């Protein structure tokens, strides 16, 4: 599946770059010729991006957002791992909470954001809660897979040397399941970012999402598009970063 996807999703290929260029050209010309409020020319957007970036108006929201993201992800990682490892080790836990984790994985958790806002107020806590709601279940699911997927031959080997349950967990199951943990972390980051931005846009005054709302409501379109560009880059960089980290870690690990 991954290979097929890679082929499908490859960005650096002439036809795509061409279609992108055509699109950019149409955008630029349309933005210039027709004086549409909602469609500033591409060049204006890029200029706005440069202006905002150098003015430092983006720095504070960016750091603010990143801090909330990291906090939420850390909590998700801890809680998700505990739940997932529990599910992976014990069939009873798996049967008892598995369906709820699966439900949380696919349900539209975003519906809870208004509740978070009312309980936690319009502050960081709401964003962190949203990040957790978006990412904890995918971390748990992958942690469970990580623990469960251990090669039975390795387990028997460890048992034959008299290793107990917890030693096996620490020495065999967790190291062997590292790729799944990383996959979970990567998906967690991808979802967590979506949660973060969702929360911020809905709260409407904080971080990058707050900027979206700020420029969106005053129809400052070039700046709005610039912020969207920032968010897209941010998401791509964060997910790409974790993927890269995972790959580095895994190659280290295989040596």
């Amino acid at each position, binding site marked *: 599946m991954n290979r*097929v*996807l890679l*082929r*499908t*999703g*490859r*960005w650096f*290929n*002439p*036809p*795509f770059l*061409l*279609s992108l260029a055509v699109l950019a050209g149409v955008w630029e010309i349309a933005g210039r010729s027709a004086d549409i*409020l*909602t469609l500033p020319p591409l060049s204006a957007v890029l200029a706005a991006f440069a202006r905002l970036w150098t003015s430092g108006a983006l720095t504070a929201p960016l750091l603010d957002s990143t801090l909330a993201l990291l906090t939420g992800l850390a909590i998700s990682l801890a809680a998700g791992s505990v739940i997932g490892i529990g599910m992976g080790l*014990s*069939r*009873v836990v*798996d*049967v*008892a*909470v598995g*369906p*709820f984790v699966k*439900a949380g994985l*696919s*349900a*539209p*958790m*975003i*519906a*809870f*954001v*208004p*509740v978070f*806002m*009312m*309980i936690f107020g319009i502050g960081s806590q709401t964003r962190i809660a949203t990040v957790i709601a978006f990412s904890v279940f995918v971390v748990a699911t992958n942690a469970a897979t990580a623990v469960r997927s251990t090669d039975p031959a390795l387990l028997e080997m460890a048992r034959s040397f008299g290793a107990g349950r917890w030693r096996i967990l620490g020495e065999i199951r967790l190291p062997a399941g590292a790729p799944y943990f990383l996959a979970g972390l990567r998906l967690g980051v*991808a979802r967590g*970012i*979506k949660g*973060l*931005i*969702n929360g911020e*846009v*809905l709260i409407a005054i904080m971080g990058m*999402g707050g900027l*979206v*709302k700020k*420029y*969106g409501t005053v*129809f400052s379109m070039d700046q*709005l598009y610039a*912020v*969207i560009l920032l*968010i*897209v880059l941010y*998401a*791509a960089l964060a*997910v790409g970063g974790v993927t890269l980290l995972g790959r580095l870690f895994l190659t280290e690990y295989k040596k």
Partner: protein
Amino acid sequence: MTSNAPSRQAGAWGHRLAASLTETFWGRLALRMTALAVFLAAWQLAGDDSIALLFPTATRTFQAFIELMADGRLPLGLLITGQALVTGYAIIIGLGVPLGVLIARFPLADRAISPYFTFLVAVPIIAIVPVVQALLGLTFAARVTVIVLFGISYVVINSAIAVRRIKPDLIEMAASFGARRFTILSQVVLPAAVPGIMTGARLALGQALIGMVVAELTIVGAGVGSLIAELQGRFKVAAVLAVAMTIVLIGLCLLSLVEMLERRFNRWSLVK
């Protein structure tokens, strides 16, 4: 080793209990019900009904749900919101499947347009909502557009993968009987891709539901979005939570419906 014999016996006992709880239908049901009960009890204890703005107990939330159902506002809101979801989802399937097939069959289309869909998967689409709103206003069309943007790439990508994965034998077989391109497409390629398309449809529904909520909360219309906004303004946490849980539960029902369909069609792909 006589010393740990009793503990070993206790262990065996525990094993048998665990097995009866996990390996039989009723055992599993009992276990899950217990888990649910524990969850509800914890919720009840964690909740605090003394001030309206605090996290509500389970009972207060349920009361709020009953009230919202009784005065008809929640059903009405859900109905209106549901229209956008149904329209959006229909567009997702109706547009996404042909696009996926196109991408799978024509390398040029693949190279030129599929990156946009991988982009849509990676990006928090809510960031684009203000643009949709600026272009289309606070309209039904805007809400539907948001839903489509959230879900369509999952159908496109999964359909493309499914079509591409078809065993070449099946296509050669049809060709050997003189079937033309279009016949091969309709009689072999599309049916063979159905399981993959269904997977895309399930994932897309999950995203479309998120898109629906986002659309309701940002491009507020007469649906649950306005209901939530109003309840929020009057600090009715329990009622907002009740609405949220209703949306989540309905969403889960729809998702399991599609998942059931998906599993039904999966039989097709069992044959090598």
